[in-house]
């Protein structure tokens, strides 16, 4: 592990550092933050100062504090959503690959149709009907995103399923769940892990975009996307407050992408 880290290129190390910073900020937000999440501490849109490292937001809350708590909420929600999407997508994809026949056909056609609709439009339509609660948001995005995971895990599982050791396990009389858990899943891990990074970025950006549209995570919960939206008016006065949360979003996704790039490079076994 450490050896691998020592050999890693500078870009991967930067990515790792970015992700670690974000995770620390998310985990220890209440300890690091100088103020409370929704505490009003001063005037509106104060400039950067020693008291308020990044200034204050549209209600006079400390922006640095909000960004720290935002890391917590935004990253946690995106992570849970991605995890859920992977559970659904992997189970579906593996089932389709091992059962084949009607299961495969039915699941694949449903996924085809869902993927033909642009995901933003689909999500907006569904959210307009079910309302914008946090649970609805997570379920809708996880379900829509799982179609992409399904495609990948089905393709990967198809390859593995054709190998001899799976056939051997099958002849031993193992059940389908056992096959999926013990034979296919461990061998499908590398592409799925890389995909997890990419899907996380996508889900993270997508939730940020929905929150930015006012249809994702609702105030007063601190969240980077909605913070951009709430402070957007500042920019026409030459106050660049919305760029901080927007930049925080970009910062984390760049970090994750750098790690994924490196991981793909290592997993593909290419040498420079």
């Amino acid at each position, binding site marked *: 592990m450490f050896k691998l880290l020592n050999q890693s290129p500078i870009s991967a190390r930067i990515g790792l550092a970015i992700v670690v910073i974000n995770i620390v900020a998310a985990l220890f937000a209440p300890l690091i933050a100088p103020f409370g999440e929704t505490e009003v501490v001063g005037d509106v849109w104060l400039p950067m100062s020693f008291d308020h490292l990044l200034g204050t937001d549209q209600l006079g809350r400390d922006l640095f504090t909000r960004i720290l708590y935002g890391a917590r909420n935004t990253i946690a929600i995106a992570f849970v959503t991605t995890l859920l999407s992977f559970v659904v997508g992997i189970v579906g994809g593996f089932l389709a690959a091992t059962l084949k026949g009607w299961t495969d056909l039915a699941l694949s056609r449903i996924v085809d149709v869902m993927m033909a609709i*642009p995901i933003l*439009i689909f999500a907006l339509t569904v959210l307009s009907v079910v309302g914008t609660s946090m649970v609805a948001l997570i379920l809708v995005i996880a379900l829509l995103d799982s179609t992409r995971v399904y495609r990948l895990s089905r393709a990967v599982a198809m390859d593995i399923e054709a190998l001899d050791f799976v056939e051997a396990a099958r002849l031993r009389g193992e059940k389908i769940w056992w096959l999926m858990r013990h034979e296919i899943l461990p061998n499908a891990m590398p592409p799925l892990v890389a995909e997890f990074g990419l899907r996380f970025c996508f889900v993270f950006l997508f939730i940020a975009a929905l929150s930015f549209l006012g249809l994702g995570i609702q105030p007063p919960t601190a969240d980077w996307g909605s913070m951009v939206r709430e402070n957007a008016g500042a920019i026409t006065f030459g106050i660049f407050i919305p760029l901080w949360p927007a930049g925080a979003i*970009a910062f984390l996704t760049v970090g994750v992408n750098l790690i994924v790039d490196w991981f793909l490079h290592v997993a593909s076994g290419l040498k420079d």
Partner: protein
Amino acid sequence: MDSIAKLVLKRVGMGLVTLIVISLVFFVGVEALPGDLAEEILGQNALPETVEAFRKELKLDLPPHVRYFSWLGGFMKGDFGNSLANGRPIADLIGWRLSNTLFLALSAAAIAVPISIILGILAALYRNSLFDRAISMATLSTISFPEFFVAYILMALLSVQLIIFPSISNINDQMSLAEKLHAIFLPCLTLTLVVMAHMMRQTRAAIINILASPYIEMAKLKGLRRLRIIVLHAFPNALSPVINVVALNLAYLVVGAVIIEVVFVYPGLGQLLVDSVSKRDIPVVQASGLIFATVYITLNLAADVLSIVSNPRLRNPR
């Protein structure tokens, strides 16, 4: 020629089936959700008679399949019903906004497509140079940055620091084309930046892929100049993936415009969709959602058909 026609017809048929299924999804999706639309809108304190009357008005008392066909039939004729929020016909709301969205997407495409193809070819020509690396950095940042981040940076630079372009892209029919273009400059530039990297990378990858083939080796051994090899020998064969990626990005432009329209308060269909979602004006959401999906699917279909037609191996069958 016959096999191409067959392929294309098959693909178009599939596209039509997808469209029908999707119209069903939009209809049934709203239908199957828990609760009654009328009660939902009027709130829990509404009198039963009011709810009943409202259900009549929304035609909720008819059986679902009758409503589906009358909704779809109306959709084909451009009659989308009335908005719940202000009672106006949805067609009036949508028509002008759809043309605005398409205007914005097409202007962005007109800039982005030629530039990214040329830059992609250059990147393939000067592989692994500084220029090539800069392009792959740019790609990484555009897939990582949220669209609104790019938009606000441009706004901060070009409309707040240097006051050249308006930060609110309000357009109306009285404006001349030049005035309109000036008004939409910032959203247009944002969209261009967002899609360009992807198109450049695909062009580069397609050309590099072809540069590995023996006939290029042959051309090289004949002593042709590199630019000539790339433009006359490699590019025609790379056309199919390039056209494909261009059409896909056009589809992305139309849909991706939603967020940019909100940032710049541009009167497009995306802005209408977002407003209607927060007002829970379901008929408008259904109609504009279906229009977006239709445009998206049609462009994806066009991408596939064009890449079939422009594939030289299919065009000259042995």
